[in-house]
């Protein structure tokens, strides 16, 4: 009997048991049903004071990623090539902490690690327009950043009283170069950025921004929750010099992305105080990728429940043979036992993949649209990433099916195999996201156990230059997507290998 025949025989077994086919259909329906339930049941409301207003659409950056673009910009027009030089003398600010007494604002002086102030070239003062900037940060030294997602480290030293930092940003067509200097004489290059298609007329100037102070608190419902609170930075800048065609060289002020209160006044405004040649720029907000909105993989909640169904079907696909004695016929017909078990794995894996793929491929685009209709925005990702998330969800189900099948062949009994599969696949994920375990333990759980495979569903990366709540519960896994999936595949291959050995070594 060729491998094709063994495959056909196993496929016939799978498709002729009504309960198993129903299980695979249930996998598909669970993914779609729960995803849609989640999407239709979620609504967002945004309020401005007591008034409900439509939620704002997220700003998109040049690369199509959702971004936060909120800062104070003091700029002048620049036509063609040119440069700006300035000396940052100090950075001070304030941070709002959790209320010590409820209802009383608890504000302390301080600068958050990624508070930033420096020089910027930006296509326009529109939110999301392309830019490149060289800056001093609160605790991460000098950085050169561009187009929200890119970040290069310069010198590790920030500014402190008595030790200012000189910065220079020069534009040469599409190339922007950032430099730093301790004294304005000896310059070191921090980095260069290419802004493709940058128009001749751009804005050049000084800026300040200060991202929210993110604090993580434990959630009584399970897991952790984070809250970001208002912060503000004020940078003292002098020795400002601009070279190039600046059309008169008058400074204009823009509070980029400021929200307006109900009475039309700006909410947490930035500002500029000029004292002779010294600029005191105050800003709040961030110039960075958006990490607070939901991700597309959140619509695949149902996959976790479908996984339990998959485990049950895959285990039964082998243990039922032992219970009914069919295994003896199977092994008589296909005496190469390893091949028979591999055929079983291929069949159950492929069937699960198909069911999961249909479910995920329907759910993700549909649920994202429904959520959008409910004014909840998901972070946009490239088509390739979306395909990876959808196929990855189906892949996790399929490889888990193979792992469960192998456990079934190892135990030969249903209940221990099902429980073992759930304990290695589902429980680490549940404990890693919804329990009291500290974040570091959760990360190790999702590195070492087969549950690492869920990483393939992560659609947005962690950004080193944005402080956010990067924990498995928020969809950020400790391993890269394919790395995590490889861990799961490794476990499945190991279990299948052991099962083949066991099947060959033992009487049926």
């Amino acid at each position, binding site marked *: 009997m060729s491998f094709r025949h063994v495959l056909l025989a196993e496929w016939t077994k799978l498709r002729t048991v009504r309960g198993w086919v129903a299980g695979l259909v249930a996998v598909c329906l669970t993914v779609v049903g*729960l995803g849609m339930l*989640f999407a239709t*049941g*979620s*609504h967002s409301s945004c309020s401005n004071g007591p008034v409900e207003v439509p939620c704002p659409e997220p700003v998109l950056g040049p690369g199509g990623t959702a971004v936060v673009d909120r800062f104070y910009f003091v700029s002048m027009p620049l036509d063609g090539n040119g440069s700006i030089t300035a000396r940052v003398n100090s950075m001070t600010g304030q941070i709002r902490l959790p209320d010590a007494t409820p209802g009383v604002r608890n504000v302390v002086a301080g600068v958050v690690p990624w508070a930033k102030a420096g020089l910027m070239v930006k296509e326009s003062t529109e939110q999301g327009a392309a830019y490149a900037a060289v800056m001093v940060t609160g605790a991460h030294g000098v950085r050169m950043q561009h187009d929200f997602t890119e970040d290069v480290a310069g010198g590790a030293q920030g500014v402190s009283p008595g030790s200012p930092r000189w910065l220079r940003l020069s534009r040469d067509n599409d190339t922007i170069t950032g430099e730093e200097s301790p004294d304005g004489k000896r310059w070191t290059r921090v980095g260069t950025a290419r802004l493709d298609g940058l128009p001749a007329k751009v804005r050049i100037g000084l800026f300040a921004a200060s991202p929210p102070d993110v604090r993580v608190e*434990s959630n*009584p*419902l*399970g*897991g952790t929750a984070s809250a970001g609170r208002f912060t503000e930075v004020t940078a003292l800048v002098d020795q400002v010099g601009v070279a190039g065609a600046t059309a008169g060289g008058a400074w204009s002020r823009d509070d980029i992305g400021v929200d307006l209160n109900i009475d039309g006044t700006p909410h947490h405004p930035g500002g500029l105080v000029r004292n002779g040649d010294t600029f005191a720029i105050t800003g709040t907000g961030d110039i960075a990728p958006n990490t607070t909105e939901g991700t597309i993989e*959140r619509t695949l*909640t149902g996959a*976790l*429940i479908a996984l*339990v*169904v998959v*485990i*049950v079907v895959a*285990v*039964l696909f082998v*243990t039922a043979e032992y*219970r009914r004695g069919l295994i003896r016929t199977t092994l008589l017909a296909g005496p190469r036992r390893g091949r028979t078990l591999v055929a079983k794995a291929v069949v159950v894996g492929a069937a699960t993949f198909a069911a999961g793929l249909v479910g995920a491929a329907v759910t993700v685009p549909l649920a994202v649209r429904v959520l959008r209709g409910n004014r909840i925005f998901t972070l946009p990702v490239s088509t390739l990433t979306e395909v990876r998330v959808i196929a990855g969800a189906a892949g996790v189900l399929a490889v888990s099916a193979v792992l469960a099948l192998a456990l079934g062949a190892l135990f030969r*009994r*249903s*209940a*221990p*195999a*099902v*429980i073992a599969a*759930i*304990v290695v696949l*589902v*429980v680490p*994920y*549940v*404990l890693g*996201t*919804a*329990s*009291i*375990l*500290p974040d*570091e*333990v959760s990360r190790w759980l999702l590195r070492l156990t087969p549950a690492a495979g869920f990483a393939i569903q992560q659609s947005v990366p962690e950004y080193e230059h944005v402080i956010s709540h990067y924990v498995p*519960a928020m969809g950020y896994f400790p391993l890269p997507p394919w790395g995590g999936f490889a861990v799961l595949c490794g476990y499945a291959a190991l279990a299948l290998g052991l099962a083949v050995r066991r099947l060959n070594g033992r009487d049926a």
Partner: protein
Amino acid sequence: MRRELHAEWTKLRTVAGPGRLLLGIVVLTVAGSAAAAGAMECPSAGCGQDATRIGLFGVQLGQGLVALLAVLAVCGEYSTGMIRTSLTAMPRRMTALAARTALLAGLTSVAGALGVLGSLLVARLLLPGNGFTPEHGYPPLSLADGPTLRAAAGSVLYLVLIAVLSAGVATAVRDSAVAAGAVLGLIYLFPMVVLMIRNEDVQRLLWRLSPMNAGLAVQATTSLPAMPIGAWAGLGVAAAWAVAALACGGLLLRARDA
């Protein structure tokens, strides 16, 4: 009922599985608690951790084996055909089910008590090394402390309720794979679904309905006002699930052919 109990006891006693599983429940519970106690840290006073809850963390793992024990005890009979002999010998099916459930509950309470006591002991030894010291506001874990005693006793009761719930579900569905999947899905996935809900009122309502969330609320000894449900009320929710499952299983057992 005495004869039924004796029969069920003989059946459980004479196979190797249950004994090993009971040992497994104790080991897994203690190991889980030890791992959590070893991993948690309290760097300064007011670190907001609940030492008792950490010390009883292993219950969340041990319950998986409790479910396995109950499912195997019930479904094993169906897969071997033994159930027909059992029901012929004990025609009062309700009594037979009650006897089996009582026996499972008793065995689970013994294993659970050992596991919980071992967990607290391990946590008492490990936690002070991680900053859970009297200076930081954490006296050594002790059963003389009212809330800790309540948490420990409640955890044992919770494990017993999981055994009853599993026995009920297993009696209702009869297939061990489906029963194991259903019980563990109910226990472990309910909390996940709760976290995905965006509406806070619905979220808290579902949290109160979830057998694991509500049932393990009994382990909380700090920040009690923030808990969506009280300790004993939460255990009551878990009990309601167990009773409902058992009633469902009993009705089906009486109505169906074996």
